[in-house]
């Protein structure tokens, strides 16, 4: 008799507890047409082919059936996606994995939710006449770059003490005029445009020649959004992966969205860039997935330049939980 009562008490307590938690998680409303939501995704530069997957997702609105509207906003020189997303100015943003780790270490509550580029597009272009075939060759030259962990690593790893750093302006005019200048670039648009301008260049890939390969232009958000709106995160991740796959198959939709956002985009450059991304397999074989050993390697590389402690746990900075099953 008493055992029955105790079991009964425990069972009812369990039911009450379960229903309480069920009420708690039901607090985040399910995605549906009757509950429209908008997700803003902030780009880190002017709209360009290299952001193709995200713009394709904006053009096609893959989350429409669940009531999710994707709003991709182009960035520019002053935009810092990580602090701005952390401060709540946008729901999602794109950045490189090294910036994500440094931000996490400095207390910003952000987390990477989907990968884009498996091989980073970053490179350095120099005039062929200078004969620069490896990174140590940058010594004795002026380098135009955006201050960023990647360049701090290159400086330290290749002992670039003889390099004069200046701000990156995105302009080819300075590069064309000054043969001593080495300029940061993407292996896609910038290399194509330099060739169009008739400049003979040597290209050094930061990932392949420099051995520094953080996941490029990955999708990230804040811990708050992950906790409060997991379904929205899942939907946006799904849309961005669909966007990249469609961009590879047919870049036309992405091109429409990019050219609508940025009037200065040259169609020839866009097509050339899309082709390089596809032919060079820069997105990798399983778009969106993070491999944890890549993050550990990155953490070790950033530790050599003292931007994160060697004991920093990189697993807090990313998650594969929101990828489509």
């Amino acid at each position, binding site marked *: 008799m008493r055992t029955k009562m105790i079991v009964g008490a425990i069972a009812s307590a369990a039911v009450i507890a379960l229903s309480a938690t069920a009420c708690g998680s039901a607090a985040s409303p399910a995605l549906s047409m009757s509950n429209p939501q908008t997700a803003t995704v902030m780009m880190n530069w002017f709209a360009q082919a290299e952001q193709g997957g995200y713009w394709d997702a904006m053009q096609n609105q893959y989350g429409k059936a669940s009531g999710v509207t994707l709003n991709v906003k182009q960035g520019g020189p002053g935009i*810092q996606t*990580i*602090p701005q997303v*952390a*401060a709540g100015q946008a729901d999602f943003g794109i950045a490189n994995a090294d910036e994500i780790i*440094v*931000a996490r270490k*400095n*207390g*910003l509550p952000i987390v990477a939710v989907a990968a884009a580029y498996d091989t980073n597009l970053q490179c350095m272009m120099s005039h062929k006449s200078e004969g620069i075939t490896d990174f140590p060759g940058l010594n004795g030259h*002026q380098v135009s770059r*955006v*201050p*960023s*962990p990647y360049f*701090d690593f290159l400086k330290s790893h290749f002992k670039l003490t003889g*390099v*004069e*750093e*200046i*701000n990156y*302006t995105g*302009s080819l005019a*300075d590069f064309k005029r000054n043969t001593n200048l080495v300029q940061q670039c993407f292996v896609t648009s910038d290399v194509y445009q330099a060739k169009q301008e008739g400049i003979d260049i040597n290209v050094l890939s930061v990932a392949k020649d420099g051995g520094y390969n953080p996941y490029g232009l990955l999708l990230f958000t804040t811990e708050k959004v992950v906790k409060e709106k997991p379904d929205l995160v899942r939907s946006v991740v799904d849309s961005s992966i669909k966007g990249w796959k469609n961009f590879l198959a047919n870049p036309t939709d992405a091109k429409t969205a990019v050219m609508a956002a940025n009037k200065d985009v040259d169609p020839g450059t866009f097509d050339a860039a899309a082709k390089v991304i596809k032919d060079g397999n820069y997105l990798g074989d399983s778009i969106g997935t993070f491999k944890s050993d890549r993050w550990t390697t990155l953490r070790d590389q950033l530790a050599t330049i003292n*931007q994160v402690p060697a004991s920093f746990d990189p697993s807090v900075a990313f998650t594969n939980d929101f990828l489509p099953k």
Partner: protein
Amino acid sequence: MTIQIAKSAPKTGTELSHNNTAKKSKSFMRAALPPVIVMVIFLVGWSVVASTIYGNRNYLLPRPEQVLQAILDNPGTLWQGIRITFFEATAGFVLAILVGFAGAIIMSQSKMLERSLYPYAVLLQTVPVVAVAPIIVLWFGYNQSAVIVIAFMISVFPILNNTLLGLLSTDRNHRDLFRMHKASRTTEFLQLRLPSALPNIFAGLRVSAGLAVVGAIVGEFIIGSGGEEGGLGVKVLFAQSRLATGLLFAEVLAATLLGFFFFLIVTLVGNRLIKRWHESALKDDA
């Protein structure tokens, strides 16, 4: 016409100096205490807000102790930044003084010259420096020269404008007096127009001193020359990219204090010079 000044019976030497030092330290305390109190209130307020409202978001607003820690951890970086920005600001300021003075002196010589040249002086003030920076870089290169030119452009107009105003405001009666004694143009300029313009000149210099530092920082920010060995503006870019907000605040504080220091120096020199003129004028009459 001599001016009679009634003077009271002189006190003994030691009495005078004693009174003077006591008065000076008392008046210094009276002048220094209110701003110090405001600073203490400000620091307390900042500490409270940074620990509560921004408690877990110190990457947006660091606590005062974090900024202090950044200063203690990076003395070499900060000092190097201060040195380089100081050099660029001084060079820009000196250039602004030379060009500003020359322009004002030329324009003060005739109404025709003033009318022809003054509009272009105003243009130097209104041209948006950030927008013409790419042109400046094209002409001077990505180096300190371009930064100095930008510091010059931002700080030249107050000097030119105020010096011109001072030179044109000479008392008519004094000018007539000099003419009556057949003084040459040079004598009139050096002995009358320039000294009487000093208060205005220093008003302009005080404004431009702070602007020269602003100009140097803006130039560094746009051009980013010097890399790790750059001035405070460049170092701010690095701190920003590494999300080192404490260091960033420390660098901004250093830049602000540098501007304040420039202002202080110019004010002290100005007060010294003007007091001397007034004193010697009085001494001649007595």
